[in-house]
């Protein structure tokens, strides 16, 4: 059959966020797959350099809606390390509890999305109805359903009261029962199992060599989890077990995420039982001393890495974010080898892509071509104007009009 190149994205019902994939098909078989990232680039790392550390906490939080607490905590941990602050234990416990609640939210959302991608809309509606329980409890604790804004440099902003603790435990009980039902559905529903099994296979060695992180790697029996390898917040005091599976396919990733949900319920209960008394924050200086730090956090999607470099003023010198999806998106091409078109949405959805997190600045060094080096802001602007002029587009008239208006 003749080969056809079909574009998936940037706008496509299978993708929740814009990215461009081009798939070469022969009938229903996928011959080649290539990804082109960058549709969600917003210049956040540059924007961080022009705002104070306190304002940056809120900006970094808005990199993503689902992993917002992840990014915020990771950034704040890096800054606290440079400033040498000792965060009180109660604040660390509260951060862990909110982090686990966010993980529950993210995994329930993923379960619904996976159901939708295979045409099982009932699972979507049921899991998203249960997600409302988590969002309501988070709204009660932090004041908003997403983008919690609970981190400060030096601790957390709000405390957990008695009523909150009762509500958290009640919600966790309800969710645990619902999750047990979903585990039964995923183990027994044959139409679902035959769509998820044998699809998106990633062997153990491939997962290691391509650098997969998070549930994508853990489903190929790679026992890596930042909460166990490099404990942060309160995880070194909470008894934490890594959840792995050896199915190597999308079904394994489903089981790993369901197992992590059960593990999260256990962690929340333990954390609340052992919640220490004390302050919830220490005073942080406005000007952070010179230094650099590197911090890691286990986002629901994998390992999230932040690097912060400070130069003694109240604005950071450089902030670099590497989201887990950037590491996982390279495994998709391997997974789709000899795959079918019908499997493409669920394979992409199985790495739990969050392209808002992913699109940052990358510099690629190729040994074949000469490197461009780095450009100053003004040079980049002039380069852009010249490039558009060479294509026949001249914006100087509009720019003059705008300058007059302002």
């Amino acid at each position, binding site marked *: 059959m003749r080969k056809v190149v079909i574009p998936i994205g940037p706008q496509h019902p299978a993708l929740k966020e814009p990215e461009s994939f081009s798939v070469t098909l022969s009938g229903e078989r996928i011959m080649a797959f290539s990804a082109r990232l960058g549709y969600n680039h917003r210049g956040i790392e540059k924007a961080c350099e022009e705002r104070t550390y306190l304002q940056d906490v809120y900006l970094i939080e808005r990199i993503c809606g689902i992993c917002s607490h992840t990014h915020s905590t990771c950034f704040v941990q890096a800054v606290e390390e440079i400033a040498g602050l000792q965060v009180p234990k109660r604040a660390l416990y509260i951060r862990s509890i909110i982090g686990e609640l966010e993980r529950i939210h993210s995994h329930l959302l993923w379960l619904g999305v996976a159901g939708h991608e295979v*045409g099982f809309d009932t699972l979507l*509606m049921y899991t998203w109805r249960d997600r409302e329980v988590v969002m309501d409890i988070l709204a009660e604790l932090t004041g908003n359903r997403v983008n919690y804004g609970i981190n400060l440099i030096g601790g957390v902003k709000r405390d957990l009261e008695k009523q909150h603790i009762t509500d958290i435990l009640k919600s966790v009980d309800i969710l645990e029962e619902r999750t047990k039902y979903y585990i039964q559905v995923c183990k027994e529903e044959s139409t679902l199992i*035959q769509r998820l099994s044998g699809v998106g296979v990633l062997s153990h060695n491939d997962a290691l060599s391509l650098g997969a992180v998070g549930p994508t790697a853990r489903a190929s029996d790679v026992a890596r989890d930042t909460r166990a390898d490099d404990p942060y917040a309160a995880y070194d005091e909470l008894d934490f077990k890594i959840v792995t599976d050896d199915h190597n396919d999308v079904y394994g990733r489903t089981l790993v995420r369901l197992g992590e949900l059960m593990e999260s319920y256990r962690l929340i209960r333990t954390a609340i039982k052992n919640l220490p008394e004390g302050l919830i924050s220490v005073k942080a200086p406005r000007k952070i001393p010179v230094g650099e730090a590197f911090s890691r956090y286990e986002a629901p999607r994998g390992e999230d890495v932040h690097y912060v470099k400070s130069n003694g003023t109240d604005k950071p010198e450089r902030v670099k974010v590497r989201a887990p999806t950037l590491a996982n998106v390279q495994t998709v091409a391997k997974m789709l080898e000899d795959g079918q078109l019908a499997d493409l949405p669920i394979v992409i959805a199985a790495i739990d892509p969050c392209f808002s997190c992913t699109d940052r600045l990358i510099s690629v060094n190729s040994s074949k071509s000469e490197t461009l080096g780095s450009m100053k802001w003004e040079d980049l602007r002039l380069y852009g104007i010249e490039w558009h002029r060479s294509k026949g587009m001249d914006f100087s008239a509009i720019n003059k009009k705008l300058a007059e208006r302002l």
Partner: protein
Amino acid sequence: MLISIFNLLVFPGIIFLGVAGMSAEFIDRKLYARMQNRTGPPWFQPWADFIKLVSKEDVVPTEANPRMFRAMPIFALTSTITASFYIPLWSTHALYSFNGDLIVTIYLLTIPTLTYFLGGWYSTSLYSKIGAIRSLTQLFAYEVPLLMCILAPALLANTWSLSEMAKFYSHHHWYWMFNLLGFAISLIALLGKLEKVPFDIPEAETEIVGGTFTEYSGRLLAMFKLSINIETIVGASLVSAVYLPFGLQLTPALGILLYVGKLLFIISILSLSRTIFARFRMDQMVEFCWKIVSPLAFLQMLICLILKGVLAI
């Protein structure tokens, strides 16, 4: 003459089928929503969708063949409406009948699937072409069991006419109980024909955007949607006429109520299957239809043949 025109245009013709199709869509969507613990749309939603689509502009892609592109929805609509004229709805005689109208009905019901294929093919867009090819592949999978299932009770009744079959089963009151296996198989095949989950591969929204209907908009899409709704009613009527042919000799008022009840029963089974199953993949669907559904349909035919000999009809 006037009565014929009334029958063709209003009842049980075009207008009745249109209203019934819209109501079928509403019932299906409402049941689907309630089973998912949601509220669902109000009763006038299908009408609102239809009016909105009709009032929009039809956009024909530049590379498409405009005459074929515009003709396909019309063919789909007319063939489904024509198929309904030969099915006995609530009495033992349909609007028109002759020996062999069983085969004609099934052929008329195949034409919509062909129009989905041709409409997608002549749209010349990538997603439409893939959807069109899938639609045709699915046709080869479910058409054989469907035909065998419809033929099995006809074998028992020893006739090729739907109305004669209805008369036969009304005389022998409990013979329709022998065909219950075929009833189950025909419901599965009906799901395939109507392209509902788990068989909605040709219009898999998350894989190929809209499948055949990606490039259709405005009045053409409204006609396609209306033809799908009417096909639901006609398919359900065919299954109920062949497999649930009891109570066909009651007075017209009671007969209509019974007919509506049978339709509701079949439509609710279709909605239920839409809710509890995930979508099949192409190869899984073909394997399922040829390895499980077709042999069972064949078994039903065997049962009817053996019974014909045993009961010495």
